[in-house]
């Protein structure tokens, strides 16, 4: 057995309310930090705005939906026109109105699957281990506390400086979190 000095993951601050977290996000962002992440027991769109988070998910879903539409329409066209043409009530083989329902359903299916899978993938899930689990206080992130972490990977990171910025936001607690 040998002990290593654990490397620092980041500095974590704990807040009692969503408003304080949003306020702290704005401050930390204003101080120039880039690698910052907030943790909350409930969805807070304001935090995303405050941290300047953007997501590619909506564009991905659009592409997924379009793929579904083309797949649905293309599949039916190929089956009815090329692979197995059937005379149904004397209609033309390429009877596109009858393809619309399946095309619509495929669009919805592909969009929904892209949304769910894309959300999980872009969030980096599943993730059985996260350095923040080393913090005892962090357990309450899924109950009633709000957290903000400045990660050590930030190019501007300086331990004393980061602690000072977080302390200035009047948190309940500031602590160092090891890897």
């Amino acid at each position, binding site marked *: 057995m040998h002990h290593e000095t654990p490397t620092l993951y980041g500095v974590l601050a704990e807040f*009692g*309310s*969503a*408003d304080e977290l*949003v306020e702290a996000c704005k401050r930390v962002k204003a101080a120039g930090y880039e690698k910052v992440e907030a943790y*909350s*027991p*409930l969805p*807070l769109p*304001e935090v995303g705005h405050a941290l300047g988070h953007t997501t590619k998910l*909506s564009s991905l879903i*659009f592409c997924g939906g379009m793929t579904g539409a083309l797949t649905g329409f293309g599949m039916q066209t190929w089956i009815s026109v090329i692979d197995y043409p059937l005379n149904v*009530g004397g209609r033309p083989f390429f009877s596109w*109105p*009858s393809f*619309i*329902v399946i095309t619509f359903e495929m669009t919805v299916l592909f969009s929904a699957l892209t949304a769910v899978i894309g959300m999980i993938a872009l969030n980096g899930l599943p993730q059985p281990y996260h350095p923040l689990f080393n913090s005892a206080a962090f357990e309450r992130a899924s109950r*009633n*506390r*709000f957290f903000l972490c400045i990660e050590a990977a930030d190019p501007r990171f300086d331990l004393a400086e980061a602690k000072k910025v977080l302390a200035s936001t009047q948190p309940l607690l500031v602590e160092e979190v090891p890897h």
Partner: protein
Amino acid sequence: MMALNNDSLRARIDGVQKLALGVGVVGAIGAGAGWSMDPTEFFRSYLLAFLFWMAFPLGCLGLTLVHTLTGGKWGISVRRVHHAGMRTLPLTALFFIVVGIGLHQLYEWSHLDVVAADPILTHKSLYLNAKGFYIRAVLYFALWIGYAYVLSARHDHYERTRDERYARTTRNLAGVGTLLFVLSVTFAVTDWAMSLEPHWFSTIYGVMFVVGQGLSTMAFTIVMCAWLAKSAPYSAIMQTKRYHDLGKLMFAFTLLWGYVTLSQFLIIWSANLPEETPWYMHRGYTSWRAILVFLLTCHFALPFLILLSRKVKQNPALVSKIALFILMMRFVDMSWLIVPAFHTEGFHFHWLYLATPAAMGGLWVAYFMHQLKGRLASAPADTYLERSLELAPSHGH
């Protein structure tokens, strides 16, 4: 508590009311001249105008019924507009009188000799007859006006008293009302619009109108709210979130319009029965086809693609421009539904098709503005509205 009334808002509403009244009066003179020149085309244009403009008070009633059942902040912020809208139903009932006068000009089934010579119409005459038409119209309007005034009075009463049991009764009333609303609108448009081609029938026709009314009303609501938001207190009420909510609903109704419009077509196209296809033969296989293609592009595809974007829905200037565009498309859609019944041979335009709707629209908007002023002035302390203003996310205590 917050006052909903203020002088600059009132002055702006007065301005629009006068302008609308002017358009209404001038338009009515023009339409009156049209009546004496060409009564047949006048009544056709009048029915078109009536069916287009009745969408707004009825849509306001329908959305108020649904919102009473479901709740939601979007509806609280726009309730004054919806209440004012549904309280214009008595004017819509007055407008209907002229449709009643034009019965013989408009509806083939109202001529006894035609009915006698046509076995199908003879069988349908148990329902499709002049007396039944008038009696049913009275019942529809009694139901709608009754619900509109009872609901708006009950909401006011609740805001004053905060009596939760009273609110529950209101919700139960709205539950029954939603059912009656969809049924009565289905019967009404069967009488007023579908019976223009009395041999033809479609069971989704009423739903198509209900959804169209919902879309018209959402678009109208967005235009109104963006306009009201230029003054207090709506400048505070209409936050980005509210535009986003209303934009999402308008988007949903756009999608639903496409859905029901296609549903009717698909069923008739699949069955391909001679008693059902003529309706589409007139509207899709004559020069009316151009309007159909235009509608699919501009009533559905274009707003659908634009409204997908969150940024658009959250931008008041942009989303209200799209809403205005959708309102114009609603009129084109109504024209495509109604006018081919009279001009089965192909595209037809008459100046009255614009003049009469403009006249009726002027009068309706003027009365709507009158009602809106009343709603804003009589608004009791509105804690509902204050709740809709809450910015902060729920606190984790």
